[in-house]
């Protein structure tokens, strides 16, 4: 029975991917909440986070082989660099590709097409400026087995992904639930016109939502690129999968995005022992279509603007 071989290995690998999908999915879900739009360029925010982390670490690490506390510092630095690059790109994206359309109250189709244009512009520009070959990120830590689960080794990388993601997820959940900014986001998601009558500055909230999504997406880009390396085309597939995760969990629902990411990551990885690896993307896409057919509101239900 092929399904049981490597089960726990695949489960852990899938969980790590799932954490990353969850981080990206939050960017989609937050923006979908405030603008009711799929931000097609979010995958490029993810990609730019990977490049940001890469360039900073290349300059800081050089040819050294860090360990111990230096490793922790470097991972945090890479994450911060990725998050800041992601946030910067997301901010500019909103300014250039979305805000002029919003000012004009353009039809939704125009937004989507503009986002597609921005996505193609950004990733091809990255290819032009940073080279079209994948670049590997210098080792910030030594990857080894930390502990085993049912005989399956859990590597340092997986531990880092899990810890970072959980911290960020809890943080974002609390930010949206408790802070003034989070209240603004929820208010705009619920009813933008009324929110503006109540004194919410919609432009600012939308901009901040993009920045938050960019921070998370950029950090996810860095995490994703640690084993795979950075390439200008890297955003496309994780982007679609993260959107699938957002739909799977319930679009607009923050906890839904987290659960959707984890479920998708595991579900697409488990069949790998029975079929070729290249079918993994097909499985993820099949899940998207099945969710749309049978439970379009997702696992936890849509939650556009209701309290998280």
């Amino acid at each position, binding site marked *: 029975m092929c399904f049981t071989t490597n089960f726990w290995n695949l489960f852990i690998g899938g969980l790590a991917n799932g954490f990353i999908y969850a981080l990206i999915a939050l960017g989609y879900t937050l923006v979908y909440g405030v603008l009711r*739009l*799929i931000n*097609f360029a979010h995958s490029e925010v993810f990609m730019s986070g990977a*490049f940001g982390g890469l*360039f900073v670490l290349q300059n800081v690490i050089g040819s050294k082989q860090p360990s111990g506390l230096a490793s922790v510092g470097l991972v945090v630095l890479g994450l911060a660099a990725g998050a800041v690059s992601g946030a910067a790109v997301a901010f500019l994206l909103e300014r*250039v*590709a979305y805000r*002029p*359309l919003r000012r*004009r*109250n*353009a*039809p*939704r*189709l*125009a*937004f*989507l*097409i*503009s986002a*597609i*244009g*921005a*996505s*193609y*512009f*950004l990733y*091809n*520009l990255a*290819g*032009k*400026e*940073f*080279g*079209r*070959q994948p*670049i590997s990120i210098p080792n910030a830590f030594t990857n080894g087995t930390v502990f085993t689960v049912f005989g399956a080794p859990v590597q340092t990388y997986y531990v880092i992904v899990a810890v970072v993601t959980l911290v960020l997820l809890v943080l974002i959940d609390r930010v949206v639930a408790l802070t003034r900014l989070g209240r603004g986001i929820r208010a705009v998601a619920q009813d933008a016109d009324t929110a503006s009558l109540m004194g919410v500055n919609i432009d600012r909230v939308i901009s901040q939502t993009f920045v938050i999504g960019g921070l998370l997406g950029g950090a996810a880009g860095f995490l994703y690129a640690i084993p795979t390396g950075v390439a200008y085309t890297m955003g*496309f*597939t994780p982007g*679609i999968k993260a*959107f*699938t995760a957002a*739909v799977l969990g319930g679009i607009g629902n923050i906890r839904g995005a987290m659960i959707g990411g984890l479920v998708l990551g595991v579900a697409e990885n488990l069949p790998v022992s029975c079929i*070729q690896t*290249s*079918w993994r*993307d*097909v499985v993820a*896409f099949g899940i*998207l*279509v099945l969710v*749309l*057919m049978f439970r*379009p509101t997702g696992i936890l239900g849509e939650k556009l603007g209701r309290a998280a």
Partner: protein
Amino acid sequence: MKARSDRLLVWSRGPDGRRLAGFTFGALILALITGPEGLEGNPTYGVIHSWLRPRVIAFIAAGVIAWFLSTFWVRNRDRWRPAVRETWQGAIEPFSDRRVRWGSYVGLIAAAALLPQVISGTWQEITVDQIGTYVLLALGLNVVVGFAGLLDLGYIAFYLIGAYSAAYWTGVLPVHPPIVLNPFWVLPLAVLAAMAAGVILGTPTLRLRGDYLAIVTLGFGEIIQIVANTLGSVTGGAQGVIGIKRFSINVFGIHYKFPVGAQANVPYYYLLLVFVIVALVVFHLLENSRVGRAWTAIREDEVAAEACGINPLKYKIMAFAIGASTSGFAGVLFASKIGFIDPTEFSVQMSILVLILVVFGGMGSLPGALIGAAFLQWGQNFLRTSNYSWYNEQDLYVYFGALVIVMMIFRPQGIIPSRRRSREIGLAEQGIGTADALAPPGSPP
């Protein structure tokens, strides 16, 4: 001194100042994308050599001049606009006469028929493979994006289905068909296959929000390429398949077989010309039929359309399937002309390219899709073949991406807009109607 800097600040936030900032930003972006390629391991090389070199001054100067001209236009807009409109009306006035209009159609067809005789062999090939095929594709996508107001980002998936249908029915795939057919007979089968794929994909998605269709088709476009690549025992895998049969005519004692290689360009040009004209006529009739009016109604106000007895889901699926079948149709033509296909030729990027052609020409406008597609594809190939030092073929989508954003900001209706569509977009901007079919059914716009 203080007052002057204050006034500058106020001005810079006003319309003129903002426009200047916009033009300068645009000039810097243009300087960046026409600048040198970055070096590997030196990420700042490209940026430094585009922005910190004297050439940037020329770009900024051009931006300022453009700002100056645009300011001039904005100041005198109200005075000049009637004159511009009048000149335009005067220019198109003779065409309201039916005889003049039909005369010009015949003239255009005659010019198109003479075209391959006056261009070089290279351009004959470009005209067929790059321009003609894409015009046909753009006309099909125009039904989905323009007429129905949906967004299809996996349009080339159906092109792949058409191309592999041609390969299957001419017996060159690893799996063999019951009978080997002439590509002419494959055309209806491929159209049916693409249409079926469109309906299967469109039905679950379109029941929900229209914007989900965009991401589902995007995923489908990627997946079908993976399937064609991986399922080697059925599709021939990554090596692709060779030897797809040519079209041949065997009726009324005429025996003609379409030639191979460079000789194939001119016959396929005429075949494509016929199909493009047929597509134009069919889509024009469709636009003005009951179906076309239903699409218009759904685009403008889905709730009202539904209240009038139109089933939005049915018409959306219909538009999606018609687009898909046009793409499948073009796929058969492409496969049998080239004679060789492999999965890499059907990338998602190509779907986006066709979308860009439609958006540039004008969503919902048949002359827009026709001329926009022909112009952009001509321009792209002109740049590619003339080897300008500032143009790198790999950067094409940087230009196209920027073009799409600029179009959406300044001219969402396209360069040759459909009158109905631009009026709709204008109304939607004032909060009347939606101008697309992306909202969830039953929700207020």
